[in-house]
Protein backbone atom coordinates (compact mmCIF):
# COMPACT_ATOMS: atom_id res chain seq x y z
CA UNK A 1 0.00 0.00 0.00
CA UNK A 2 1.10 3.54 -0.70
CA UNK A 3 2.12 5.88 2.09
CA UNK A 4 -0.51 8.53 2.81
CA UNK A 5 1.91 10.51 4.91
CA UNK A 6 5.58 10.64 4.23
CA UNK A 7 8.10 12.51 6.34
CA UNK A 8 11.67 12.72 5.10
CA UNK A 9 14.64 13.79 7.16
CA UNK A 10 12.55 16.29 9.07
CA UNK A 11 14.45 18.64 11.32
CA UNK A 12 13.25 21.33 13.65
CA UNK A 13 15.40 23.76 15.57
CA UNK A 14 13.37 26.17 17.70
CA UNK A 15 14.19 29.88 17.80
CA UNK A 16 16.10 29.40 21.05
CA UNK A 17 18.45 27.00 19.26
CA UNK A 18 16.96 23.81 20.70
CA UNK A 19 16.96 20.94 18.23
CA UNK A 20 13.64 19.21 18.86
CA UNK A 21 13.70 16.99 15.74
CA UNK A 22 16.99 15.61 14.46
CA UNK A 23 16.06 14.19 11.10
CA UNK A 24 12.93 12.08 11.35
CA UNK A 25 11.96 9.84 8.45
CA UNK A 26 8.64 8.08 8.60
CA UNK A 27 6.12 6.60 6.17
CA UNK A 28 2.58 6.02 7.30
CA UNK A 29 0.32 3.76 5.34
CA UNK A 30 -3.26 4.50 4.54
CA UNK A 31 -5.68 3.05 7.06
CA UNK A 32 -3.20 2.05 9.73
CA UNK A 33 -3.02 3.05 13.36
CA UNK A 34 0.44 4.15 14.37
CA UNK A 35 1.27 4.76 18.00
CA UNK A 36 4.16 7.10 18.72
CA UNK A 37 5.69 6.38 22.07
CA UNK A 38 8.22 8.53 23.77
CA UNK A 39 9.00 10.23 27.06
CA UNK A 40 8.13 13.86 27.76
CA UNK A 41 10.07 16.24 25.56
CA UNK A 42 10.88 13.55 23.01
CA UNK A 43 9.52 15.68 20.17
CA UNK A 44 6.16 13.97 19.57
CA UNK A 45 4.14 17.18 19.65
CA UNK A 46 6.75 18.99 17.58
CA UNK A 47 6.57 16.26 14.93
CA UNK A 48 2.77 16.45 14.77
CA UNK A 49 2.73 20.27 14.81
CA UNK A 50 5.20 20.39 11.95
CA UNK A 51 3.17 18.00 9.84
CA UNK A 52 0.00 19.99 10.55
CA UNK A 53 1.53 23.38 9.70
CA UNK A 54 1.61 24.89 13.18
CA UNK A 55 5.39 24.80 13.36
CA UNK A 56 7.53 25.44 10.29
CA UNK A 57 10.21 22.83 9.63
CA UNK A 58 13.90 23.76 9.60
CA UNK A 59 14.71 21.09 7.02
CA UNK A 60 13.22 18.05 5.35
CA UNK A 61 9.99 17.38 3.53
CA UNK A 62 6.44 16.36 4.36
CA UNK A 63 4.07 14.84 1.85
CA UNK A 64 0.41 14.30 2.69
CA UNK A 65 -1.68 12.29 0.25
CA UNK A 66 0.87 13.12 -2.44
CA UNK A 67 0.76 16.86 -1.71
CA UNK A 68 3.78 18.72 -0.42
CA UNK A 69 2.72 20.16 2.94
CA UNK A 70 4.56 23.43 2.29
CA UNK A 71 3.82 24.12 -1.36
CA UNK A 72 0.39 22.56 -1.67
CA UNK A 73 -0.63 23.24 1.91
CA UNK A 74 -4.33 23.58 1.22
CA UNK A 75 -4.70 20.11 -0.26
CA UNK A 76 -2.38 18.64 2.37
CA UNK A 77 -4.08 20.19 5.39
CA UNK A 78 -7.58 19.41 4.09
CA UNK A 79 -6.84 15.74 4.68
CA UNK A 80 -5.76 16.17 8.29
CA UNK A 81 -7.70 16.41 11.53
CA UNK A 82 -5.79 17.27 14.69
CA UNK A 83 -6.74 16.67 18.30
CA UNK A 84 -4.10 18.75 20.07
CA UNK A 85 -2.50 17.86 23.36
CA UNK A 86 -3.53 21.08 25.10
CA UNK A 87 -7.15 22.09 25.51
CA UNK A 88 -7.49 25.48 23.81
CA UNK A 89 -11.07 26.58 23.26
CA UNK A 90 -12.91 29.86 23.17
CA UNK A 91 -14.67 29.84 26.58
CA UNK A 92 -17.69 32.00 25.78
CA UNK A 93 -18.67 30.23 22.57
CA UNK A 94 -21.12 27.34 22.34
CA UNK A 95 -20.10 23.81 21.40
CA UNK A 96 -22.14 24.03 18.23
CA UNK A 97 -20.60 27.29 16.99
CA UNK A 98 -17.16 26.03 17.88
CA UNK A 99 -17.41 22.95 15.69
CA UNK A 100 -19.20 24.79 12.89
CA UNK A 101 -16.32 27.25 12.87
CA UNK A 102 -13.81 24.40 12.52
CA UNK A 103 -15.69 22.92 9.60
CA UNK A 104 -15.93 26.34 7.97
CA UNK A 105 -12.19 26.87 8.23
CA UNK A 106 -11.76 23.83 6.03
CA UNK A 107 -13.93 25.46 3.40
CA UNK A 108 -16.77 22.99 3.74
CA UNK A 109 -20.41 23.97 3.50
CA UNK A 110 -22.47 23.62 6.62
CA UNK A 111 -23.83 20.14 7.21
CA UNK A 112 -25.84 20.04 10.42
CA UNK A 113 -26.77 16.38 10.11
CA UNK A 114 -23.14 15.32 9.88
CA UNK A 115 -22.03 17.52 12.77
CA UNK A 116 -24.88 16.30 14.96
CA UNK A 117 -23.81 12.79 14.18
CA UNK A 118 -20.26 13.58 15.30
CA UNK A 119 -21.60 15.06 18.55
CA UNK A 120 -23.80 12.02 19.11
CA UNK A 121 -20.88 9.61 18.72
CA UNK A 122 -18.98 11.59 21.34
CA UNK A 123 -21.99 11.78 23.70
CA UNK A 124 -21.98 15.55 23.28
CA UNK A 125 -25.31 16.09 21.59
CA UNK A 126 -27.06 17.27 24.75
CA UNK A 127 -24.26 19.80 25.25
CA UNK A 128 -24.72 21.25 21.78
CA UNK A 129 -25.85 24.67 23.01
CA UNK A 130 -23.73 24.80 26.15
CA UNK A 131 -20.91 27.25 26.36
CA UNK A 132 -17.43 25.77 26.46
CA UNK A 133 -16.73 27.23 29.90
CA UNK A 134 -19.66 25.30 31.36
CA UNK A 135 -18.10 21.97 30.37
CA UNK A 136 -15.90 19.65 32.43
CA UNK A 137 -12.35 18.86 31.34
CA UNK A 138 -13.36 15.56 29.80
CA UNK A 139 -16.19 17.20 27.89
CA UNK A 140 -13.81 19.81 26.52
CA UNK A 141 -11.58 17.06 25.23
CA UNK A 142 -14.58 15.56 23.47
CA UNK A 143 -15.16 18.95 21.86
CA UNK A 144 -11.57 18.92 20.61
CA UNK A 145 -12.20 15.54 19.01
CA UNK A 146 -15.46 16.79 17.49
CA UNK A 147 -13.61 19.77 16.02
CA UNK A 148 -11.03 17.48 14.47
CA UNK A 149 -13.74 15.28 12.97
CA UNK A 150 -15.86 18.21 11.77
CA UNK A 151 -14.36 18.14 8.29
CA UNK A 152 -14.22 14.35 7.81
CA UNK A 153 -10.41 14.05 7.78
CA UNK A 154 -8.62 11.12 6.09
CA UNK A 155 -5.79 11.32 8.62
CA UNK A 156 -6.39 11.87 12.31
CA UNK A 157 -3.72 12.93 14.77
CA UNK A 158 -4.43 12.34 18.45
CA UNK A 159 -1.78 13.96 20.62
CA UNK A 160 -1.94 12.31 24.05
CA UNK A 161 -5.70 12.00 23.84
CA UNK A 162 -6.09 10.09 27.07
CA UNK A 163 -3.85 12.13 29.35
CA UNK A 164 -5.96 12.88 32.42
CA UNK A 165 -9.12 11.46 30.93
CA UNK A 166 -11.71 9.35 32.74
CA UNK A 167 -12.39 5.73 31.94
CA UNK A 168 -15.68 6.41 30.21
CA UNK A 169 -14.21 8.89 27.79
CA UNK A 170 -11.34 6.56 27.01
CA UNK A 171 -13.83 3.87 26.16
CA UNK A 172 -15.86 6.23 23.96
CA UNK A 173 -12.72 7.45 22.31
CA UNK A 174 -11.46 4.01 21.38
CA UNK A 175 -14.87 3.22 19.97
CA UNK A 176 -14.67 6.28 17.77
CA UNK A 177 -11.14 5.38 16.77
CA UNK A 178 -12.17 1.84 15.90
CA UNK A 179 -15.05 3.16 13.83
CA UNK A 180 -12.79 5.59 12.00
CA UNK A 181 -10.31 2.86 11.28
CA UNK A 182 -13.15 0.78 9.86
CA UNK A 183 -13.94 3.76 7.61
CA UNK A 184 -10.37 3.69 6.37
CA UNK A 185 -9.08 6.71 8.28
CA UNK A 186 -5.39 6.71 9.10
CA UNK A 187 -4.72 7.37 12.76
CA UNK A 188 -1.54 8.54 14.42
CA UNK A 189 -1.58 8.83 18.18
CA UNK A 190 0.95 9.67 20.81
CA UNK A 191 0.58 8.33 24.27
CA UNK A 192 2.28 7.67 27.54
CA UNK A 193 -0.01 4.74 28.18
CA UNK A 194 1.77 1.90 26.56
CA UNK A 195 -1.00 -0.60 27.17
CA UNK A 196 -3.13 1.61 24.95
CA UNK A 197 -0.68 1.45 22.09
CA UNK A 198 -0.40 -2.27 22.69
CA UNK A 199 -4.15 -2.67 22.52
CA UNK A 200 -5.00 -0.68 19.41
CA UNK A 201 -1.96 0.10 17.29
CA UNK A 202 -0.91 -1.72 14.14
CA UNK A 203 2.57 -0.26 14.28
CA UNK A 204 4.58 1.36 17.00
CA UNK A 205 7.17 4.10 16.68
CA UNK A 206 9.53 4.97 19.49
CA UNK A 207 10.86 8.51 19.58
CA UNK A 208 13.25 10.01 22.06
CA UNK A 209 15.51 13.06 22.03
CA UNK A 210 14.14 14.13 18.65
CA UNK A 211 15.08 10.87 16.97
CA UNK A 212 12.89 8.06 15.82
CA UNK A 213 14.53 4.95 17.26
CA UNK A 214 12.34 2.51 15.43
CA UNK A 215 9.03 2.02 13.71
CA UNK A 216 7.85 -1.51 13.60
CA UNK A 217 4.87 -3.74 13.35
CA UNK A 218 3.62 -4.12 16.88
CA UNK A 219 3.45 -7.92 16.85
CA UNK A 220 6.86 -8.41 15.32
CA UNK A 221 8.34 -5.84 17.68
CA UNK A 222 7.01 -7.74 20.61
CA UNK A 223 8.18 -11.02 19.22
CA UNK A 224 11.59 -9.64 18.35
CA UNK A 225 12.28 -7.73 21.48
CA UNK A 226 10.01 -9.47 23.89
CA UNK A 227 11.42 -10.96 27.00
CA UNK A 228 9.58 -13.97 28.19
CA UNK A 229 9.36 -15.11 31.73
CA UNK A 230 9.00 -18.65 32.89
CA UNK A 231 7.46 -19.08 36.29
CA UNK A 232 8.12 -22.40 37.97
CA UNK A 233 5.69 -22.95 40.80
CA UNK A 234 6.84 -25.25 43.55
CA UNK A 235 4.68 -27.55 45.64
CA UNK A 236 6.82 -26.75 48.69
CA UNK A 237 8.17 -23.32 49.43
CA UNK A 238 11.94 -22.76 49.67
CA UNK A 239 13.86 -20.09 51.62
CA UNK A 240 16.41 -19.36 48.94
CA UNK A 241 17.32 -20.37 45.42
CA UNK A 242 19.12 -23.73 45.80
CA UNK A 243 22.90 -23.56 45.29
CA UNK A 244 22.67 -26.07 42.44
CA UNK A 245 20.62 -23.53 40.45
CA UNK A 246 22.65 -20.42 41.30
CA UNK A 247 24.11 -20.06 37.79
CA UNK A 248 20.62 -19.44 36.27
CA UNK A 249 19.94 -15.95 37.75
CA UNK A 250 16.59 -16.93 39.08
CA UNK A 251 14.32 -14.83 41.20
CA UNK A 252 12.37 -16.09 44.12
CA UNK A 253 8.70 -15.09 44.05
CA UNK A 254 5.48 -15.57 45.97
CA UNK A 255 7.01 -16.20 49.40
CA UNK A 256 9.31 -18.85 48.06
CA UNK A 257 6.58 -20.69 46.20
CA UNK A 258 7.90 -19.94 42.73
CA UNK A 259 11.09 -19.38 40.78
CA UNK A 260 11.05 -16.84 37.95
CA UNK A 261 13.34 -17.30 34.99
CA UNK A 262 13.70 -14.54 32.38
CA UNK A 263 14.90 -15.40 28.91
CA UNK A 264 15.12 -13.79 25.53
CA UNK A 265 12.93 -15.24 22.81
CA UNK A 266 15.54 -14.17 20.26
CA UNK A 267 18.24 -16.35 21.82
CA UNK A 268 19.20 -19.59 20.05
CA UNK A 269 18.91 -21.52 23.24
CA UNK A 270 16.45 -20.49 25.86
CA UNK A 271 17.88 -22.84 28.44
CA UNK A 272 14.46 -23.99 29.54
CA UNK A 273 15.08 -27.72 29.15
CA UNK A 274 18.28 -27.62 31.14
CA UNK A 275 16.68 -25.51 33.84
CA UNK A 276 13.76 -27.86 34.29
CA UNK A 277 16.12 -30.84 34.49
CA UNK A 278 18.25 -29.13 37.10
CA UNK A 279 15.18 -28.11 39.10
CA UNK A 280 14.12 -31.75 39.29
CA UNK A 281 17.67 -32.87 40.14
CA UNK A 282 17.81 -30.33 42.99
CA UNK A 283 14.93 -32.26 44.50
CA UNK A 284 12.26 -29.64 43.98
CA UNK A 285 8.76 -30.72 43.00
CA UNK A 286 6.98 -28.74 40.30
CA UNK A 287 3.39 -27.74 40.95
CA UNK A 288 2.89 -25.81 37.73
CA UNK A 289 4.74 -23.96 34.97
CA UNK A 290 3.65 -20.83 33.12
CA UNK A 291 5.18 -18.30 30.74
CA UNK A 292 4.53 -14.60 30.44
CA UNK A 293 5.32 -12.28 27.53
CA UNK A 294 6.68 -8.90 28.53
CA UNK A 295 4.58 -5.90 27.57
CA UNK A 296 5.42 -3.07 25.21
CA UNK A 297 6.09 -1.03 28.30
CA UNK A 298 9.02 -3.20 29.26
CA UNK A 299 10.33 -3.03 25.72
CA UNK A 300 9.92 0.70 25.64
CA UNK A 301 11.60 1.31 28.96
CA UNK A 302 14.46 -0.92 27.86
CA UNK A 303 14.88 0.96 24.59
CA UNK A 304 14.79 4.43 26.03
CA UNK A 305 17.14 3.52 28.85
CA UNK A 306 19.56 2.03 26.41
CA UNK A 307 19.54 5.23 24.40
CA UNK A 308 20.42 7.49 27.27
CA UNK A 309 24.07 8.15 28.13
Amino acid at each position, binding site marked *: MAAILSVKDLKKT*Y*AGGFEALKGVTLDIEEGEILALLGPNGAGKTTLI*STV*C*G*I*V*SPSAGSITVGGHDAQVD*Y*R*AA*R*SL*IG*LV*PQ*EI*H*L*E*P*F*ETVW*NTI*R*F*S*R*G*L*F*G*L*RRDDAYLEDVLRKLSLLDKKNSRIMELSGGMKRRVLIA*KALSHSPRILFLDEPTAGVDVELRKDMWEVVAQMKADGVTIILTTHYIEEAEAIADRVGVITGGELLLVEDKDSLMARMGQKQLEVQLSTAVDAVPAALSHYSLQLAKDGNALVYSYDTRADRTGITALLNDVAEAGLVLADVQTRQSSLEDIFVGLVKGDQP
Partner: protein
Amino acid sequence: MNWVAVISIYRFEMARFFRTLAQSFFSPVLSTSLYFVVFGAAIGSRIQEVDGIAYGAFIVPGLIMLSVITQAISNASFGIYFPKFIGTFSELLSAPVNFLEIVMGYVGAAATKALFIGVVILVTASLFVDLTIAHPFAMLLFLVLTCLSFSLLGFIIGIWAGNFEQLQLVPLLVVTPLVFLGGSFYSISMLPPIWQTITLFNPVVYLISGFRWAFFENADVPVGLSLLAIGGFTAFCLGVIWWIFKTGWRIRA
Protein backbone atom coordinates in the same frame (compact mmCIF):
# COMPACT_ATOMS: atom_id res chain seq x y z
CA MET B 1 -9.54 31.59 -2.19
CA ASN B 2 -11.24 29.83 0.74
CA TRP B 3 -14.27 32.11 1.04
CA VAL B 4 -16.13 29.79 3.37
CA ALA B 5 -13.27 30.14 5.84
CA VAL B 6 -13.28 33.94 5.54
CA ILE B 7 -17.01 34.02 6.24
CA SER B 8 -16.61 31.54 9.12
CA ILE B 9 -13.98 33.70 10.80
CA TYR B 10 -16.06 36.81 10.17
CA ARG B 11 -19.17 35.27 11.70
CA PHE B 12 -17.31 33.80 14.65
CA GLU B 13 -15.88 37.25 15.42
CA MET B 14 -19.21 38.98 14.93
CA ALA B 15 -20.79 36.52 17.38
CA ARG B 16 -18.50 37.91 20.06
CA PHE B 17 -19.84 41.36 19.19
CA PHE B 18 -23.48 40.30 19.26
CA ARG B 19 -23.03 38.65 22.64
CA THR B 20 -22.31 42.09 24.04
CA LEU B 21 -24.61 43.99 21.72
CA ALA B 22 -26.34 45.99 24.44
CA GLN B 23 -22.99 47.16 25.73
CA SER B 24 -21.68 47.79 22.21
CA PHE B 25 -24.76 49.91 21.55
CA PHE B 26 -25.26 51.85 24.76
CA SER B 27 -21.71 52.81 25.57
CA PRO B 28 -21.22 54.93 22.40
CA VAL B 29 -24.71 56.40 22.85
CA LEU B 30 -23.85 57.35 26.41
CA SER B 31 -20.40 58.73 25.68
CA THR B 32 -21.67 60.75 22.71
CA SER B 33 -24.43 62.22 24.84
CA LEU B 34 -21.86 63.13 27.49
CA TYR B 35 -19.67 64.82 24.91
CA PHE B 36 -22.63 66.91 23.82
CA VAL B 37 -23.44 67.86 27.37
CA VAL B 38 -19.85 68.86 28.10
CA PHE B 39 -18.64 70.30 24.79
CA GLY B 40 -21.94 71.30 23.23
CA ALA B 41 -23.56 72.90 26.25
CA ALA B 42 -20.63 74.11 28.35
CA ILE B 43 -18.08 75.11 25.73
CA GLY B 44 -20.59 75.61 22.94
CA SER B 45 -22.26 78.39 24.93
CA ARG B 46 -18.98 80.33 24.64
CA ILE B 47 -17.93 79.29 21.15
CA GLN B 48 -20.97 79.93 19.05
CA GLU B 49 -19.66 79.01 15.65
CA VAL B 50 -16.55 77.70 13.98
CA ASP B 51 -16.10 78.77 10.39
CA GLY B 52 -19.79 79.53 10.21
CA ILE B 53 -20.88 76.12 11.55
CA ALA B 54 -22.67 75.73 14.88
CA TYR B 55 -20.11 74.35 17.36
CA GLY B 56 -22.33 71.41 18.32
CA ALA B 57 -22.48 70.28 14.71
CA PHE B 58 -18.84 71.11 14.06
CA ILE B 59 -17.57 68.53 16.55
CA VAL B 60 -19.71 65.65 15.22
CA PRO B 61 -17.28 64.41 12.52
CA GLY B 62 -14.39 64.54 14.99
CA LEU B 63 -16.39 62.69 17.63
CA ILE B 64 -17.26 59.95 15.17
CA MET B 65 -13.65 59.65 14.04
CA LEU B 66 -12.41 59.52 17.62
CA SER B 67 -14.67 56.58 18.47
CA VAL B 68 -14.32 54.78 15.16
CA ILE B 69 -10.53 54.89 15.24
CA THR B 70 -10.31 53.70 18.85
CA GLN B 71 -12.91 51.00 18.28
CA ALA B 72 -11.35 49.74 15.06
CA ILE B 73 -7.94 49.41 16.69
CA SER B 74 -9.14 47.80 19.88
CA ASN B 75 -11.55 45.40 18.13
CA ALA B 76 -9.00 44.22 15.61
CA SER B 77 -6.05 44.00 17.97
CA PHE B 78 -8.06 42.16 20.61
CA GLY B 79 -9.73 39.97 17.99
CA ILE B 80 -6.45 38.51 16.79
CA TYR B 81 -4.58 38.71 20.09
CA PHE B 82 -7.22 36.75 22.01
CA PRO B 83 -6.83 33.52 19.97
CA LYS B 84 -3.08 33.86 20.33
CA PHE B 85 -3.52 34.29 24.07
CA ILE B 86 -5.86 31.36 24.65
CA GLY B 87 -4.10 29.15 22.11
CA THR B 88 -6.85 28.71 19.52
CA PHE B 89 -4.70 30.48 16.96
CA SER B 90 -2.95 27.20 16.13
CA GLU B 91 -6.23 25.99 14.67
CA LEU B 92 -5.95 28.71 12.03
CA LEU B 93 -2.40 27.63 11.25
CA SER B 94 -3.38 24.00 10.72
CA ALA B 95 -6.42 24.83 8.58
CA PRO B 96 -6.25 25.19 4.79
CA VAL B 97 -6.40 28.98 4.95
CA ASN B 98 -3.79 31.55 4.04
CA PHE B 99 -2.87 34.69 5.89
CA LEU B 100 -4.86 36.93 3.57
CA GLU B 101 -8.05 35.01 4.41
CA ILE B 102 -7.31 35.30 8.12
CA VAL B 103 -6.78 39.06 7.72
CA MET B 104 -10.00 39.47 5.75
CA GLY B 105 -12.04 37.61 8.35
CA TYR B 106 -10.67 39.41 11.39
CA VAL B 107 -10.24 42.86 9.88
CA GLY B 108 -13.60 42.66 8.13
CA ALA B 109 -15.34 41.89 11.43
CA ALA B 110 -13.46 44.58 13.35
CA ALA B 111 -14.22 47.17 10.67
CA THR B 112 -17.90 46.22 10.67
CA LYS B 113 -18.12 46.70 14.42
CA ALA B 114 -16.39 50.09 14.19
CA LEU B 115 -18.69 51.12 11.36
CA PHE B 116 -21.72 50.13 13.41
CA ILE B 117 -20.53 52.28 16.29
CA GLY B 118 -19.81 55.18 13.94
CA VAL B 119 -23.35 55.04 12.62
CA VAL B 120 -24.81 54.82 16.14
CA ILE B 121 -22.90 57.96 17.11
CA LEU B 122 -24.01 59.76 13.97
CA VAL B 123 -27.64 58.96 14.71
CA THR B 124 -27.29 59.90 18.39
CA ALA B 125 -25.62 63.18 17.46
CA SER B 126 -28.41 64.05 15.05
CA LEU B 127 -30.78 63.98 18.02
CA PHE B 128 -28.79 66.78 19.66
CA VAL B 129 -27.92 69.02 16.73
CA ASP B 130 -29.09 69.86 13.24
CA LEU B 131 -26.93 67.88 10.85
CA THR B 132 -26.82 68.13 7.08
CA ILE B 133 -24.45 65.96 5.16
CA ALA B 134 -23.29 67.74 2.03
CA HIS B 135 -21.63 64.70 0.43
CA PRO B 136 -23.13 61.50 1.86
CA PHE B 137 -21.10 59.19 -0.38
CA ALA B 138 -17.82 60.88 0.41
CA MET B 139 -18.79 60.75 4.07
CA LEU B 140 -19.42 57.02 3.82
CA LEU B 141 -16.21 56.48 1.88
CA PHE B 142 -14.13 58.24 4.51
CA LEU B 143 -15.91 56.37 7.27
CA VAL B 144 -15.44 52.94 5.69
CA LEU B 145 -11.82 53.60 4.76
CA THR B 146 -11.09 54.75 8.30
CA CYS B 147 -12.73 51.64 9.77
CA LEU B 148 -10.72 49.41 7.44
CA SER B 149 -7.34 51.07 7.71
CA PHE B 150 -7.36 51.35 11.48
CA SER B 151 -8.61 47.77 11.78
CA LEU B 152 -5.58 46.79 9.70
CA LEU B 153 -3.39 48.75 12.12
CA GLY B 154 -5.11 47.04 15.04
CA PHE B 155 -4.48 43.65 13.45
CA ILE B 156 -0.78 44.45 13.19
CA ILE B 157 -0.72 45.54 16.84
CA GLY B 158 -2.49 42.35 17.88
CA ILE B 159 0.02 40.18 16.01
CA TRP B 160 2.91 42.14 17.48
CA ALA B 161 1.68 42.28 21.08
CA GLY B 162 3.17 39.76 23.47
CA ASN B 163 0.93 40.67 26.39
CA PHE B 164 -2.11 42.73 27.30
CA GLU B 165 -0.03 45.78 28.28
CA GLN B 166 1.53 45.97 24.84
CA LEU B 167 -1.93 45.63 23.37
CA GLN B 168 -2.96 48.85 25.14
CA LEU B 169 0.33 50.64 24.61
CA VAL B 170 0.11 51.87 21.03
CA PRO B 171 -3.52 53.05 21.22
CA LEU B 172 -2.84 54.79 24.52
CA LEU B 173 0.50 56.45 23.77
CA VAL B 174 0.20 57.14 20.07
CA VAL B 175 -3.29 56.98 18.69
CA THR B 176 -5.37 58.72 21.36
CA PRO B 177 -3.09 61.81 21.53
CA LEU B 178 -2.96 62.04 17.75
CA VAL B 179 -6.72 61.86 17.50
CA PHE B 180 -7.34 64.37 20.28
CA LEU B 181 -4.83 66.78 18.76
CA GLY B 182 -6.13 66.11 15.28
CA GLY B 183 -8.75 68.84 15.25
CA SER B 184 -11.69 66.84 16.56
CA PHE B 185 -12.90 69.69 18.70
CA TYR B 186 -11.44 72.76 17.01
CA SER B 187 -10.47 74.09 13.64
CA ILE B 188 -6.77 74.23 12.96
CA SER B 189 -7.16 77.85 11.94
CA MET B 190 -7.92 78.58 15.60
CA LEU B 191 -4.37 77.62 16.59
CA PRO B 192 -1.30 79.93 16.69
CA PRO B 193 0.62 79.74 13.36
CA ILE B 194 3.50 77.64 14.69
CA TRP B 195 1.07 74.99 15.99
CA GLN B 196 -0.80 75.03 12.71
CA THR B 197 2.43 73.93 11.03
CA ILE B 198 3.24 71.28 13.62
CA THR B 199 -0.29 69.92 13.45
CA LEU B 200 0.09 69.24 9.74
CA PHE B 201 2.47 66.41 10.65
CA ASN B 202 -0.37 64.66 12.42
CA PRO B 203 -1.92 62.24 9.91
CA VAL B 204 -5.24 62.21 11.76
CA VAL B 205 -5.71 65.89 10.88
CA TYR B 206 -6.17 64.91 7.24
CA LEU B 207 -8.74 62.28 8.11
CA ILE B 208 -10.87 64.49 10.28
CA SER B 209 -10.58 67.38 7.87
CA GLY B 210 -11.72 65.25 4.94
CA PHE B 211 -14.52 63.74 6.94
CA ARG B 212 -15.67 67.17 8.07
CA TRP B 213 -15.58 68.39 4.50
CA ALA B 214 -18.03 65.63 3.56
CA PHE B 215 -20.44 67.08 6.11
CA PHE B 216 -19.98 70.84 5.79
CA GLU B 217 -17.76 71.43 2.75
CA ASN B 218 -15.36 73.01 5.18
CA ALA B 219 -11.83 71.67 5.45
CA ASP B 220 -8.48 72.46 7.07
CA VAL B 221 -6.58 70.82 4.23
CA PRO B 222 -7.65 70.11 0.62
CA VAL B 223 -9.93 67.09 0.45
CA GLY B 224 -7.76 65.43 -2.21
CA LEU B 225 -4.89 65.47 0.24
CA SER B 226 -7.13 63.85 2.83
CA LEU B 227 -7.99 61.03 0.47
CA LEU B 228 -4.36 60.61 -0.42
CA ALA B 229 -3.46 60.42 3.27
CA ILE B 230 -5.98 57.73 4.12
CA GLY B 231 -5.14 55.83 0.94
CA GLY B 232 -1.45 56.00 1.78
CA PHE B 233 -2.05 54.86 5.34
CA THR B 234 -4.14 51.89 4.15
CA ALA B 235 -1.40 50.96 1.68
CA PHE B 236 1.21 51.20 4.43
CA CYS B 237 -0.75 48.85 6.73
CA LEU B 238 -1.32 46.42 3.86
CA GLY B 239 2.41 46.51 3.17
CA VAL B 240 3.26 45.67 6.75
CA ILE B 241 0.73 42.84 6.73
CA TRP B 242 2.17 41.51 3.49
CA TRP B 243 5.60 41.50 5.13
CA ILE B 244 4.23 39.65 8.18
CA PHE B 245 2.70 37.17 5.80
CA LYS B 246 5.96 36.64 3.91
CA THR B 247 8.14 36.24 6.98
CA GLY B 248 5.71 34.52 9.35
CA TRP B 249 6.78 37.08 11.94
CA ARG B 250 5.24 36.32 15.37
CA ILE B 251 2.96 33.75 13.78
CA ARG B 252 4.67 30.38 13.34
CA ALA B 253 7.30 28.91 15.63
